[in-house]
């Protein structure tokens, strides 16, 4: 099971009455100002402090800095929770494989000769050598170069050189590639867990599952990733990347130049009447209607005239295929979905899957794939890829400013680590504030996209899963990595 702090109840989606409920999410009664959280101000550990009376919410900055926190996260989160591994369409044919590191563990993500999807630890059972040293390809076998132990794509032993040197009584029978403990697929999104004792994937995904389904239904013949993976890294804690994605408050000031570019193409960005949602278990959602058009669904001038006509046709096709209400839910708003802990799905003017992989407290590896409609017209495909690249990634016109934000936070939070200005350490200095919209949350009013409610729900879940980390937090030593 997913580790939780003693006494904490499973989190239900908490959309206050009156909130425009996004499709697929049930309205839930407000749960804010009651229960043990209200009493002791501590949610799951002392690094997250909420005060309903004062409508404040703060996160202790050691959560971004301390090696001990990352170590605890590695154990409590990355070793015991479903993680996003990759998309089925990255390995379309039998024998296709990709290698990537997830939760610090090198893996082989592959499709066997019968078409089944696997994830193996990329370490030879013999002596631990990296078994597959390519990043991608197609093969019938994985052969370790060191001593030539060889395995089929289904994981079974194919060859053991000079077998006579081993015990005859079945030594080789037990040899196979070591699979991850659990693997499950939802709408092409492949998740794995290193812990066999986790709830089913759909239980873990909860309210987030239907948003993956919605995105998967945009194309009448499905969706596929494309080649060309953006692989980069930022000098910031992984949780800063999560916050940034759930934070509509930053958009106008941080992306001033991108908003200006859109204005010049004939599109005016607005933040009015848009909302963020707690999907439970750390998952979050921001629904945006004023930030961009949507290729094939909502036209904007930079998409060009021929795309305007195609948009009308495609939107009608979606209504016929999905029904009017469902088509509206899928097509008429952009969505940024966060699936705890490492998946971000940007369903915006075009679509990007982003995977987070912590490397150090202050460094995070990022992989980003473009997600496109199967069999869409070539000119639409090109428009989609070009439009998305103009925004996202380390070379886009917007993401570099987000990266600047994470990196500036990661540098800035060392200023308050274990300091005070009266001769003694002042523990009140070393907190980051996420109170915006807290009074509305308390009063069960809608959580605006430009508030910080989806960040708070992430941090509440994080604090319950991670629990207390000795030496970190306000009572800690202030020693940071």
């Amino acid at each position, binding site marked *: 099971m997913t580790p939780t702090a003693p006494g904490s109840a499973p989190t239900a989606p908490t959309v206050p009455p009156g909130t425009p409920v996004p499709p697929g999410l049930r309205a839930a009664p407000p749960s804010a100002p009651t229960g043990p959280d209200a009493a002791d101000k501590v949610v799951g550990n002392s690094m997250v402090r909420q005060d309903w009376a004062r409508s404040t919410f703060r996160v202790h900055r050691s959560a971004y800095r301390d090696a001990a926190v990352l170590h605890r996260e590695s154990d409590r989160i990355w070793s015991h929770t479903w993680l996003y591994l990759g998309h089925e369409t990255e390995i379309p044919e039998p024998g296709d494989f990709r290698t990537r590191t997830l939760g610090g563990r090198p893996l082989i993500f592959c499709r066997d000769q019968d078409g089944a999807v696997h994830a193996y630890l990329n370490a030879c059972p013999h002596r631990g050598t990296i078994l597959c040293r390519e990043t991608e390809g197609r093969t019938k076998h994985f052969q370790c170069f060191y001593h030539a132990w060889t395995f089929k794509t289904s994981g079974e032993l194919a060859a053991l050189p000079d077998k006579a040197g081993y015990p005859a009584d079945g030594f080789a029978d037990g040899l196979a590639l070591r699979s991850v403990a659990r693997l499950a697929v939802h709408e092409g999104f492949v998740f794995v867990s290193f812990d066999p004792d986790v709830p089913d994937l759909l239980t873990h995904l909860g309210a987030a599952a239907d948003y993956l389904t919605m995105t998967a239904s945009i194309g009448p013949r499905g969706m596929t990733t494309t*080649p060309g993976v953006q692989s980069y890294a930022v*000098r910031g804690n992984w949780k800063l990347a999560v916050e940034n994605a759930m934070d509509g408050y930053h958009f106008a000031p941080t992306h001033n130049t991108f908003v200006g570019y859109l204005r010049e193409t004939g599109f005016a960005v607005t933040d009015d009447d848009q909302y963020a949602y707690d999907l439970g278990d750390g998952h979050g959602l921001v629904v945006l209607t004023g930030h961009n058009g949507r290729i094939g669904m909502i036209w904007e001038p930079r998409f060009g005239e021929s795309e305007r006509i195609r948009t009308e046709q495609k939107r009608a096709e979606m209504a016929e295929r999905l029904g009017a209400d469902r088509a509206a839910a899928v097509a008429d708003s952009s969505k940024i979905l966060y699936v705890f802990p490492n998946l971000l799905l940007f369903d915006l003017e075009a679509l990007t899957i982003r995977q987070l992989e912590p490397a150090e407290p202050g460094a995070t590896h990022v992989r980003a794939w473009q997600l496109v409609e199967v069999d869409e017209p070539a000119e639409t495909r090109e428009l989609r*890829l070009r439009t998305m690249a103009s925004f996202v990634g380390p070379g886009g016109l917007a993401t570099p400013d987000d990266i600047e934000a994470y990196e500036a936070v990661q540098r800035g939070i060392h200023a308050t680590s274990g300091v005070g200005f009266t001769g003694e350490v002042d523990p009140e200095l070393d907190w980051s504030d996420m109170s915006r919209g807290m009074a509305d949350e308390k009063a069960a009013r809608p959580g605006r996209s430009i508030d910080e409610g989806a960040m708070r729900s992430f941090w509440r879940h994080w604090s319950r899963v991670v629990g207390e980390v000795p030496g970190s937090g306000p009572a800690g030593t202030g020693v940071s990595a």
Partner: protein
Amino acid sequence: MTAQPDLTLDLPTSERTVGRPEVEDFLYREAHLLDTWQLDAWLALFVPGATMEVPTTDNRGWTPAEAGYFVCDDWDLLRARVKRLKSRKAHAENPRSRTHRMVGNVCVVAQEGAELTVGANVVVHRYRDGAAFTYVARYDHRLVVLPDGLRFVLRRAVPVNEAMGPGERLSFIL
């Protein structure tokens, strides 16, 4: 293999034979303009309608029409990028990175009339926020020959790095 820019040149071109020294001078001048952040003068090295590309580190010849890229600017976006970088609200480059480019191994790959294909190796050292970053790339450009010099039709920088490491963003012009 890259997509052919849809370019209708409204400029007088020249079919004179271009040698390596002229290409070197062009690329050295470009490097100087970028290292000194003279972005308007840099943009003037392109013909209207030109494009700029930086493929991802796993690219095996895929075009921007079929694959994810770090940068695939058409002419509108290229001008928008320059406008953005000149703004003090381009936070990722305010303050600006210090960059230092070394361009070498310049060669003329082919000339067909006024169209020139050139290659070069480039190392860009970038300094910001107390950290140093090294970008190693291959230039794979298409130029057009004008009576008074050369201009970019397609400016393509192909990273050699296996991935962009921590802090190695492409907020500047690679």
